[in-house]
């Protein structure tokens, strides 16, 4: 026997009411028998798009979110055109009365059908989502011919129809909706005047200066704006509007009036039913009213003294309510919302969030104004976080700002980055602004449209799932942040996929846990890790990462199973597109000699190397080498491996330094050679490319290396870490300034070891440094705040001591066939024993 369903009555089928029902159905499809009361005779529609209906760019049917069929499909009983008037809490019944067809649904005194039978619905739970009604400032003559509100689909139709008979229209209210109404009216060929009671437009979102700038732009479009105008009377002649009289004694000739002066919550049903009502229906953090079985959501709610009229907070409320009511998360709480909007007002880009002006003495205000382009940007920073921002005319950084504002995250010390995008990174764009054909993942050629589809249709709500579905983020990974933003934008929130934190996909542990388990169990080979920590399931995609980790964890003791190495590390060369390899001999500090060059040239000729090329790291690359030639070439070269192929220390470039350069302040060549001798072949989570510069002119690009040392006046060296100049460009962070080569080597080594121990597999230093923060790293590596500096120094020394040139394997291959070309099989049929 199925248990009796609980009965849920929802009062109001506007955006909030319908959304909360959707959220409930998502969590518990069959839990409730749902009945909805909707005072308007329609299904539910997207009120935000109303102005599009007014200006004709969308038809009324296009903005329906849930057509009547939706209610039927989901087994919801809708009383359309019936206004709920009272909740009888004794009998647990909601009472409604059918409205006359022409009745104004949200009016306090909406006309009921005379003598119609009342509708009664019993309930276990009620959700009140009555929303709000437009506010009409007190004035004589409002109502009747030529006066309109701007709120419902019917309003739009009627405004558009009436405008055909008019030359001039007045819009009362200079807020967002008022401006939208004015824009809509303009398309109907009437002259429009906006009347605002406050001294400026959009007072909720803009400060006076931005308000004035917006006003100038709007007036340039041909719309008249009058501020500080309070309408006292609508004067008619022969039944038609003739003019408006204002409080200051002035007048304005007009043919019609549209009022859009804000909203007031609809709370009568709560008052008459004995619920606590203040400015609106008072709700707790679980969206409960003063009656435990009655909830409320949306514009009719007062939560912690605030009433929200924007979509995002209401969506958040709906989620919490659904979590609580379905028991999906009985402890869910709504703690209030931060407000921010990004919109286009009459073609003007605008973003506004939080405060519009400073309110505390220590608030920092950053302002940029460019009147000739109508651009105004303002930032209010409090405790190094965004307390408010206004972007008018140019909103490139709005998406990022909004995220930082909502997340309450600490902001860049360069405030200009927040207003104009980072000087070091790509332009900061809101993902919403990108067209569908924009390529997000440049490695795998995945467009925003494809990702959007995966999110919305494929229901991929984690970065890993989107990657699995589209391949986005599976190349260099630098677009993962954008993918996360897209998920946030189109699915609400990013689901944290635990697997994203695993060190390797095939072992369900984060790096720190994995390291602890490996040490506890004494696992020294990749196959042992699979056996003990992955249920015996071998995963090829995890082998290489595990090998790298084990080698760092067990220096000298690691059981080096060669099948766990990537081909490059099996043969100490870099595989090319045609299956050949490259040979890059080490050239310490980029300094070579005629004898060495001669040997390289001879080897290149002897083995018919198709291409000899300088690498980006000041070395010679012999490309197109056959696998079985590799060991012979190494022997002939007699130079150690340059490690141009593995996740390890690669090279240290240098400039001319002090020997010949007329600017050199420090011996960058000698330091680079010392660095290369010391750290050659040191494995790490990802490759490390280094450079030393003899002066801040940075000829060797040390500022943008994983680790860089730059000589400065006074015999000092600056050490930079986390720089990048590949797919990602980032200037390294200054770790510290030291006095000698030895100190450079020591601190670089200490940082490398810390990175080896704490970096995620395939996490470059520029991500690692950003993830931990330079201050944290400096505390640990330079200040020794954790008391581990000596241990780190010892560990890196051990790794240095363990270094062996891998090209020595030329003499004795590590395993049979290490450098073999495909073996020619002798095709001799085998005589089978059929017995």
């Amino acid at each position, binding site marked *: 026997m199925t248990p009796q369903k609980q009965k849920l009555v929802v009062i109001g089928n506007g955006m909030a009411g319908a959304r909360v029902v959707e959220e409930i159905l998502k969590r518990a499809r069959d839990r409730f028998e749902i009945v909805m009361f909707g005072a308007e005779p329609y299904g539910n529609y997207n009120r935000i798009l109303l102005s599009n209906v007014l200006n004709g760019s969308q038809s009324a049917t296009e903005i329906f979110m849930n057509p009547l069929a939706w209610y039927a499909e989901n087994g919801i009983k809708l009383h359309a055109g019936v206004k709920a008037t009272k909740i009888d809490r004794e009998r647990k019944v909601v009472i409604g009365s059918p409205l006359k067809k022409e009745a104004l649904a949200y009016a306090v005194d909406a006309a009921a059908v005379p003598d119609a039978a009342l509708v009664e619905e019993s309930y276990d739970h009620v959700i009140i989502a009555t929303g709000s009604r437009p506010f009409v400032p007190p004035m004589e003559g409002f109502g009747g011919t030529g006066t309109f509100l701007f709120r419902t689909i019917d309003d739009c139709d009627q405004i558009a129809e009436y405008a055909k008979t008019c030359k001039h229209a007045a819009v009362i209210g200079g807020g967002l909706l008022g401006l939208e109404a004015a824009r809509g009216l303009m398309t109907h060929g009437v002259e429009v005047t906006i009347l605002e009671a406050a001294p400026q437009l959009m007072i909720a979102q803009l400060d006076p200066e931005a308000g004035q700038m917006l006003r100038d732009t709007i007036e340039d479009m041909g719309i008249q704006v009058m501020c500080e105008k309070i309408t006292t009377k609508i004067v008619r002649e022969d039944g038609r509007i003739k003019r408006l009289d204002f409080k200051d004694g002035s007048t304005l000739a007009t043919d019609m009036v549209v009022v859009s002066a804000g909203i007031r919550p609809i709370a009568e049903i709560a008052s008459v039913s004995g619920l606590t009502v203040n400015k609106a229906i008072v709700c707790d953090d679980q969206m409960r009213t003063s009656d435990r079985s009655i909830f409320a959501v949306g514009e009719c709610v007062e939560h912690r003294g605030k009433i929200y009229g924007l979509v995002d907070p209401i969506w958040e409320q709906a989620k919490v309510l659904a979590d609580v009511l379905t028991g999906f998360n009985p402890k869910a709480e709504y703690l209030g919302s931060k407000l921010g909007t990004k919109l286009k007002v009459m073609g003007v880009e605008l973003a506004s969030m939080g405060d519009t002006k400073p309110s505390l003495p220590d608030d920092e205000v950053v302002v940029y104004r460019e009147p000739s382009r109508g651009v105004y940007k303002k930032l209010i920073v409090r405790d190094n976080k965004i307390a408010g921002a206004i972007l008018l005319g140019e909103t490139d950084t709005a998406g990022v700002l909004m995220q930082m504002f909502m997340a309450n995250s600490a902001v860049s010390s360069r405030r200009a980055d927040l207003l104009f995008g980072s000087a070091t990174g790509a332009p900061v764009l809101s993902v919403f602004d990108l067209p569908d054909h924009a390529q997000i993942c440049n490695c795998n050629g995945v467009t925003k449209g494809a990702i959007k589809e995966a999110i919305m249709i494929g229901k991929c709500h984690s970065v890993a799932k989107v990657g699995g579905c589209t391949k986005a983020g599976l190349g260099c990974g630098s677009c993962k942040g954008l993918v996360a933003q897209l998920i946030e934008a189109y699915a609400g929130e990013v689901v944290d996929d635990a697997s994203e934190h695993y060190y390797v996909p095939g072992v369900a542990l984060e790096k720190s846990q994995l390291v602890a388990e490996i040490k506890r169990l004494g696992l020294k080979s990749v196959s042992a890790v699979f056996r003990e920590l992955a249920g015996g399931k071998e995963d090829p995609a995890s082998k290489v990462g595990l090998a790298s980790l084990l080698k760092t964890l067990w220096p000298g003791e690691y059981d080096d199973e060669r*099948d766990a190495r990537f081909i490059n590390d099996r043969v100490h060369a870099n595989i090319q597109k045609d299956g050949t390899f490259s040979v890059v001999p080490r050239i310490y500090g980029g300094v070579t000699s005629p004898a060495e060059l001669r040997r390289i040239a001879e080897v290149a000729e002897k083995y018919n190397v198709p291409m000899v090329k300088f690498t980006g790291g000041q070395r010679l690359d012999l490309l197109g080498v056959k696998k079985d030639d590799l060991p012979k070439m190494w022997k002939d070269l007699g130079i150690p491996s340059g490690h141009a192929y593995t996740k390890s220390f690669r090279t240290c470039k240098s400039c001319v330094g002090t020997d010949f350069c007329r600017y050199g302040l420090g011996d960058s060549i000698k330091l680079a050679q010392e660095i290369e001798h010391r750290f050659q072949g040191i494995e790490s989570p990802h490759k490390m490319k280094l450079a030393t510069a003899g002066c801040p002119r940075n000829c060797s690009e040390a500022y943008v290396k994983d680790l860089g040392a730059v000589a400065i006046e006074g015999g000092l060296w600056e050490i930079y870490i986390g720089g990048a100049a590949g797919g990602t460009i980032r200037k390294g962070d200054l770790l510290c300034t030291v006095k000698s080569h030895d100190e450079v080597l020591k601190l670089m080594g200490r940082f490398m070891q810390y990175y080896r121990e704490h970096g995620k597999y395939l996490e470059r230093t520029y991500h690692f440094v950003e993830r931990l923060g330079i201050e944290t790293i400096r505390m640990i590596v330079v200040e020794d705040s954790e008391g581990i500096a000596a241990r780190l120094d010892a560990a890196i020394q051990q790794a240095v001591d363990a270094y062996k040139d891998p090209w020595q394997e030329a003499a004795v291959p590590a395993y049979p066939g290490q450098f073999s070309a*495909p073996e020619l099989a002798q095709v001799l049929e085998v005589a089978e024993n059929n017995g």
Partner: protein
Amino acid sequence: MNTPNTRTINLGSLDKIPLGQGRSFQVEDTQIAVFRQRDGKLFATQNACPHKQGPLAEGVAGGGKVICPLHSHKFDLATGQGSEPHECVKTYVVREAGGEILLQL
């Protein structure tokens, strides 16, 4: 047992393939990759990745799969099914007998 359309070819000692790795063999005009998994299972596929002809025998293998060394396309060694749509590789029957690798064509 050989049917009239199949032939069995002896590729030589199993020791030619290091444990857990693959190795390519030129069999007449085709290159065939043979994999020797750590659990003792043998697999054989065409050596050329259908994507950009990467040598699959050089890929990291295990758990019944191989990852192409060039662009990390994955293939199931038993069925030939690839990780990318419309990509798969030809597989061959291969077994070990008396320490030798026997490939069936």
